[in-house]
């Protein structure tokens, strides 16, 4: 409920939510929106935009619009899969470090810091180079493995501020296990931070996955926006004047990324009330407002 209110209160967040909903529907039911098969090389090559082909055709004579619509699914799988997985790992490591304290805090924190400063994208490139033609699952695994550290650090400092609260002491006195306290007592208090972290992770997973696919480290036969850009680049689409082949998938990535980023606004504001918009007018005082409605 709190989340819904935060999203509807900010115009930016509402725009983000609507945009994301559109992409979710596209990913679930691509067939409803695109009548052409995305893989069939059924048309003339490199056609421009027309009523028949809204975004033209590719260098192999596939319908670009259909490819963009069907390509949504893999991007969403990566965004949600890797985004969720890295947030969960981050929560486990960050909160465990803060809650256990002492040696474990030192060790986990050092580990997090080391992973945090090793440059992520070059590492992704190196791993993907060894794997060859990474499919969806490999991409999710690699992005998860490399992408949890920043969130873990954030969640650790949040959990540290909770460590000496009474409700945790009460749980300890009841004799609950550490795992129970972390999952049932601590994590729910950080839900807005967790959602914000997931949105940020999902955004970067989309960007990094598309980048890897663009430079040819994804599966070249996969249907996704990054792969479409890879083929556009191979086809020298810009130099040859087939602009739509490059513009459409890039714009899709940008829009999905913007959806996550805009939605994040609302959750940043829940987590840090100082960022909320300054109210110009004081709310009028209605002495009986509450009571009369009750």
């Amino acid at each position, binding site marked *: 409920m709190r989340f819904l209110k935060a999203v509807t209160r900010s115009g930016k967040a509402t725009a983000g939510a609507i945009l994301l909903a559109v992409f979710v529907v596209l990913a679930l039911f691509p067939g409803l929106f695109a009548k052409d098969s995305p893989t069939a090389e059924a048309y003339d090559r490199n056609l421009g935009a027309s009523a028949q082909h809204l975004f033209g055709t590719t260098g192999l004579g596939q319908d670009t619009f259909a490819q963009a619509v069907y390509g949504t699914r893999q991007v969403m799988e990566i965004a949600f899969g890797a985004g969720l997985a890295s947030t969960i790992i981050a929560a486990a490591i960050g909160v465990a470090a803060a809650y256990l304290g002492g040696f474990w805090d030192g060790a986990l924190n050092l580990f997090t810091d*080391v992973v945090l400063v090793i440059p992520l994208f*070059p590492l992704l490139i190196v791993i993907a180079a060894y794997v060859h033609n990474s499919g969806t699952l490999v991409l999710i695994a690699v992005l998860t493995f490399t992408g949890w550290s920043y969130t873990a650090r954030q969640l650790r400092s949040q959990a540290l501020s909770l460590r000496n609260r009474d409700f945790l002491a009460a749980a300890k006195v009841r004799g609950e296990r550490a795992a129970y306290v972390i999952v049932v007592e601590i994590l729910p208090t950080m839900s807005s931070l967790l959602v914000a972290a997931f949105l940020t992770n999902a955004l970067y997973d989309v960007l990094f996955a598309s980048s890897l696919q*663009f430079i040819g480290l994804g599966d070249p036969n996969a249907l996704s926006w990054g792969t479409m850009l890879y083929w556009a680049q191979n086809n020298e689409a810009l130099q040859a004047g087939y602009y739509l082949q*490059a513009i459409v998938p*890039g714009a899709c990535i940008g829009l999905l990324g913007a959806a996550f980023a805009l939605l994040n606004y609302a959750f940043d504001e829940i987590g840090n009330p*100082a960022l909320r918009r300054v109210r110009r007018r004081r709310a009028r005082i209605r002495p009986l407002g509450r009571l009369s409605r009750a």
Partner: protein
Amino acid sequence: MRFVLRRAGFFLLTLWAAVTLNFFLPRMMPGNPAVAMVAKFRGRISGQELTALETIFGVNSGQSLPAQYVHYLGDIARGNFGTSLFFFPSSVSSVVRTAIFWTLGLVGVTTILAFILGTGVGIIAAWRRGGLVDSIAPPVLVITSAIPYFWVGMMFILIFGLKLQWLPWSGGFNLTDTPSWSGSYIVDVLEHAILPATALLITTVGTWTLTMRNNMVTTLAEDYVRMARAKGLRSSRIMFDYAARNAILPNLTGFAMSLGFVVSGAILIEYVFNYPGVGYMLLQAVENEDYPLMQALFLLITVAVLVAILLADIATAIFDPRTRSAR
């Protein structure tokens, strides 16, 4: 001093972690990819170099894993990365040396510009909360930060390179020019740098602005800022010496985070613009399965990032007295 020493220790630890990753990654992968690579180059390179390669990647060396590891650490410490397969017979170190020059120029200058510009806009946006800059900059920057770096580069090529034909968009200089310190060559190099530098600037400036704005908003609510106002100090004094000076500290520490984006942006921008720097070279190495070159470049990029973070840490120690007394 203690703080800086601790950070230096962390620097060494991370460096060791990166070298270890380099060592174990190819060995952990299903069907050690290095084996295929060595097989591919057998017969094409001399016996001695093949043996050197085999020891680096642990193929047919007959050594145990720990022994290979010690050997590998020794090689890296001596700067011996083997022979580049793609640029055969040049050694990896000599190939890397030419690429560094280009990247340092492009990325170094752009990073400093992005930091100054981004932090400046962030300060103004927070200072005039709800003003023109504050209502335009954050949403625009949120959206630009969601656009893939390489796509911004492609659109730049399309608009300024191909359509308007204002600037060259491929390579670091005209291939007809001979590199020298002549005026025409320098102008040529600068012209080639403008488009990639601007594309990189646009995609990286956002993180600086947004974090600076949010830090600044938090510091502006502090009591010492109210105190400064009550004393009747000039606004510029409050803005820079009281609020911004304190708000910039987390931004310096966040340098580690942002630098990662700059590096990934630079790799893709160099690739799109065929800019002959480290990132372009890295992707060339990947494309041609030149693993020795790839490993060396990964290590080089990591070291560069770590050095920059260490410098940011030292700057933090100078600006923030609290770090000096910290445990």
